[in-house]
Every structure is written in structure tokens, then in C-alpha cells.
């Protein structure tokens, strides 16, 4: 079996997998027919894996979402496109490596693909700044979205960031302004925008490429207003309470479906996307095709109206009648 970093809650599976491996070895070395035992063990392992992954807590989902081998933006792009061309730079002196984009064909449709990119190992993570984009990244993304708008290319964005970069230079270059402009300008786009949270959706840094006609989320992805670690140290005054904060913040796909923030939660292969990346690619590809078909049947005007209405409806509050107000006052 492939060596991979194991998460704490995956450890019960290890023993089973080792047994399976031993039996395979045995079968290779001898003439004994082990196919039946093998089948039994394998289906047992599959069942266990499914049980474990169905019962993940929000804090455990964060671990899956941050798994170093979880398919990244570039992985999905490579699975989708043969003719991908990465496009660089914000035309203001920066080419952020944590937020990348380019053109390619998905099926027979030319599209613009944009997403956060983390690294697989320490070295690549340093170059990618752990997927935390600087203002130049958001400005590059906006330049590419404007380009897509002009050439009528549908836009696919892939969200996978702990958050926008917090640093001296980022502040000096206007991190807040860069994200804010994207939030406003994405409402102007005349082409369909589909955003998918493929890993972690960290706050404003995620939303900066997330104003979309459809927001999709993988089953074990998370989308948060603030990282559970930060939230725990502020509200609980104890960073160790991050798992409690993760549960309280309602960050999973199911939570966000209920809150009408996301449109669809995509099931992951048993064991999570990192277990079967190609399968996860097919799942996402099918969902994107389906939503693009729907969105491309709308006029540009209808598309923009629907995008506005979608975000306009977000939020929960009470609207008291004037009589109630008098009573309350």
C-alpha cells in the first residue's frame, strides 16, 4: 500500500492494512490461494474506513482538509485539462505563487481556472507561502477574472487557504483593499463563476475568490469565518479549545448547506480525497459540468441578478413589527 502521512483517527486502519499486505506477500511467495481471506479483510477495511470517515468531528475534518496529499488546485487542473496554460502576474510587479490561475479546456469548453495553491512539502510550502496569498495574488486573480469576462470564459475557482497572508508587506500593499475589490468586482462578471472549497476555506482570504454563482464544497472541506485556533484564543481565551471552536463555528459542508451558504456538498471517496484523487477529480468534474450547463442557459443579465439575489439572501435576523418594537421599548 502507498506510504502516506496518517491522521490520528486513521490509526485503527493501519493494523488491518498491514495484515492485508502480509497476506498479499504470502500469496506472492507461495501457491496458497488467499483470495477469499483477502477479500474479507479488504471489505472489512473498507467498512472501517467508511465508518471512521462518516463520523468525523469538525476538528478531524480540518485535519483531512489540511492533509498534505489532498488533491490541490493544480492536481485538479491537471486531471481536468490537457491544454492548460498558467498565466502569471498582477501587472503591478508581483506574481504570487500562493494564488495561481490560467486558461484551459474542461471537456470542450475553454475556461479560466483560478485557485489557492499550497505546497506538498516544506520547500514547496515556503515558495507557496502555505497557500496564503498576498495582495498581488488577489489582484492577479481579479485581472484573470476580468480577462475571462472579456473573452466570455466561464470561471472556476478552487478555494484552499488558511487565510490571506498577514504580514507587514501585505498590509502596506493593501491586503484589505485587494480582497474588497474582488468582492465588489465579482458581482459585475457576466460569465458563470463556480467556486469549490477543495480543502480549507479560511475567512476573507477564501471569499476573495469566492463570490460565485455556485459554491460547492467537498464533504471533508471546511469553510470558516476565523480559524478555530484564533477563535478559541479570543473567545475561550485558550487556543487548546480549538476543537470546541471548530464545532461551535459550524464549518462543515452539512452545516453550511443548512445555513444556505453553500449550494452542494460533494461526496468524497471513502477515506477522503487523498485516498483516491482521480475519483475525487471525476466527482468534481461531473458537478462542474452539471452546474455550468445550468448557468450557461441564463442570460448575462439573469446571471448577475441571480448572483446578487443569492448573496442578498444570506444572513439570519428578526424583523419586528412596529407594535413589537413599542412593546420592547
Amino acid at each position, binding site marked *: 500500500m502507498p506510504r502516506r502521512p496518517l491522521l490520528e483517527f486513521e490509526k485503527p486502519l493501519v493494523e488491518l492494512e498491514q495484515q492485508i499486505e502480509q497476506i498479499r506477500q504470502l500469496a506472492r511467495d507461495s501457491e496458497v490461494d488467499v483470495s477469499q481471506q483477502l477479500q474479507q479483510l479488504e471489505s472489512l477495511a473498507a467498512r472501517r474506513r467508511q465508518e471512521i470517515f462518516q463520523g468525523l468531528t469538525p476538528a478531524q475534518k480540518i485535519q483531512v482538509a489540511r492533509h498534505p496529499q489532498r488533491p490541490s488546485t493544480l492536481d485538479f487542473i491537471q486531471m481536468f485539462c490537457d491544454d492548460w496554460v498558467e498565466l502569471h502576474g498582477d501587472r503591478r510587479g508581483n506574481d504570487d505563487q500562493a494564488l495561481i490561475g490560467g486558461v484551459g479546456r474542461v471537456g470542450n469548453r475553454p475556461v479560466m481556472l483560478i485557485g489557492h495553491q499550497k505546497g506538498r512539502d516544506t520547500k514547496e510550502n515556503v515558495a507557496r507561502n502555505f497557500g496564503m496569498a498576498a495582495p498581488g495574488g488577489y489582484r492577479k486573480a481579479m485581472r484573470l477574472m476580468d480577462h475571462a469576462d472579456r473573452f466570455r470564459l466561464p470561471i472556476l475557482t478552487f478555494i484552499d487557504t488558511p487565510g490571506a497572508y498577514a504580514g507587514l508587506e501585505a498590509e502596506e500593499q493593501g491586503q484589505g483593499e485587494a480582497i474588497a475589490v474582488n*468582492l465588489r468586482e465579482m458581482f459585475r462578471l457576466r460569465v458563470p463563476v463556480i467556486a469549490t472549497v477543495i480543502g480549507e476555506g479560511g475567512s*476573507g482570504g477564501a471569499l476573495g475568490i469566492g463570490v460565485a454563482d455556485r459554491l460547492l464544497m467537498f464533504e471533508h472541506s471546511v469553510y470558516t469565518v476565523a480559524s478555530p485556533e484564533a477563535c478559541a484564543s479570543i473567545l475561550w481565551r485558550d487556543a487548546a479549545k480549538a476543537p470546541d471552536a471548530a464545532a461551535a463555528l459550524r464549518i462543515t459542508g452539512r452545516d453550511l448547506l443548512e*445555513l444556505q451558504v453553500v449550494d452542494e456538498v460533494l461526496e468524497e471517496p471513502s477515506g477522503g480525497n487523498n485516498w483516491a484523487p482521480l475519483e475525487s477529480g471525476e466527482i468534481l468534474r461531473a458537478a462542474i459540468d452539471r452546474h455550468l450547463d445550468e448557468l450557461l442557459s441564463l442570460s448575462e443579465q439573469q446571471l448577475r441578478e441571480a448572483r446578487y439575489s443569492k448573496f442578498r439572501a444570506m444572513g439570519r435576523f428578526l424583523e419586528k413589527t412596529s407594535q413589537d418594537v413599542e412593546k420592547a421599548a
Partner: protein
Amino acid sequence: MSLFDWFADRRKGQYVANVKQEPDEGDGLWSKCPECAQVVYLKDLKLNASVCANCGYHHRIDSSERIALIADPDSFQVLNADLAPVDPLGFKDRRAYADRLRESQASTGLRDGVVTGLCRVEGIPMGLAAMDFRFMGGSMGSVVGEKITRLIEESTARKLPLLIVCASGGARMQEGMLSLMQMAKISGALERHREAELLYMPLLTHPTTGGVTASFAMLGDLILAEPKALIGFAGRRVIEQTLREKLPDNFQTAEYLQEHGFVDTIVPRTQLRSTLANLLRLHGCKPMELTSA
């Protein structure tokens, strides 16, 4: 300052002195400036827009004092005052969100952290929102987002210019992702206001940070700020942790942002109304009656 810093400061008790306008000492008629320590008669301080006449320190003011400083007398018509917060996540940390809300409502007399309405400035009609930092650190949840969005829509429909006075630690964590989405909702409404070629000015006051900075605070046609106001995306503490080095003393002040090109003009509070009226006139806005909301 991020919400984090605000909580941390409050813990240390630093902020208590800043937040409270009236010192408890003596008969409550006098106030000591936290900057220059000069003691002034409270009535005189209010007459000077809560700005220290000696050193220019801008004391924090609440939404009603802010509106009184901007709107012509008796011109402010409040909108959507009946919107009230709920607890959509059933959120509880060390305390329940519902309790925090009740407490803030009791101490401020507000339902949530922003007051919105229409007013006139030297006769010129304008949409006006004033965030109130006393209400859970001016944090933005569903009600703040909805009231600001409705104000922008009303201003667009009436072809009015718009001023939003920012004072906020950012998104309200207790409403989770619904808070984050208010950033997009408001930005979408501002896009339509802009498309109608109407003037929008945020006024950044101490502090303007986090999700507010990453949305409507930075989307002004003109961006105004109060002297020395703290304005930023990430909290100073967070940045110091990443950098492990000292930040410039004036880091994230209004003056620093102006130097870096993100603030058009810094407006002393004592000149706020006249500056606003001048800018409105320079953009073709004219005095006229304001039909009731």
C-alpha cells in the same frame, strides 16, 4: 487592531479607559485626556466634538454622538431600527452569544452594532451609517450586514451619496460564516451604487480592521479617515508573530495608510461636517428636501 487585540487589550484593562467617555472620578463632570493628561470640563469636550483641545486626541464616540456631528439638526431619519439579531448557530463559548447580545443591548440601548438612516449635511441629502464600537466591538453579523445593505439599496434608489462610518473589529465570529458572507453582500450592493455613478465615502475611525477593512471600508470612491485611527486587515500581534520583528511605531495608523496610498484624506473631527459638505458639493450634490423614508 483585530478583534483579538481588542479582547486582549480589554483583558488588560487598557481599553476601559478609552471606551468610557466619562471618568468615574469626582463628580463625573470632568474628563482626563488619556494622551496629554489634561483635565477638561466634560461639557467643553463634547462641544469640541470629543476632541482634546490641547493635544487633538480623538476620544471614541458612540453612534448617536457621531450622527449628531454629521447630520444637520433634526434631519436624521432612522431606517430599519426594528432589525434584531438572532443566534443562528446556537453559539456558546465561555458565555452564550444570546447573553452577550442581551448585555450589549442593555448597555447601549441599541439592537445591534450599527445605526442607519438618511440625513442632510448642510442641506444636502445623504445616506448615513454609523457603526457603534460599544456593541460587541462593532463586530459585523447578519443585522449589521443587512442594515448596511438596505441603506445602500435605499441610497441607490434615491440617487443619494453615502457615508459609512466604520468602527469595527471585523466579522462577528458568533454568527460564523453568515458573518463572513455579509462582506460579500454589502460589496454587491456597493457595486450597484457605484454603477449608478453615486458617491460613496467610508470614514475610517478607530479601529477599522478585519472583515470590514476587507470589504466596504476599502471600497470608497473617496476614503476618509480620522487622525491616528487604527486601520488594518490583520492584527498587529498576528503580524509580529509571523515576522518576529518590530513593526514601525505608526504602523496601521490613518497617517501610515495615507502614506501608502489607501486613504484619500484625514479629516479632523471638528471639521467633519464642513469637509463632507464641501466634498458633496464638489461632486455635484445639491441641497434639497429629503422626503420621508
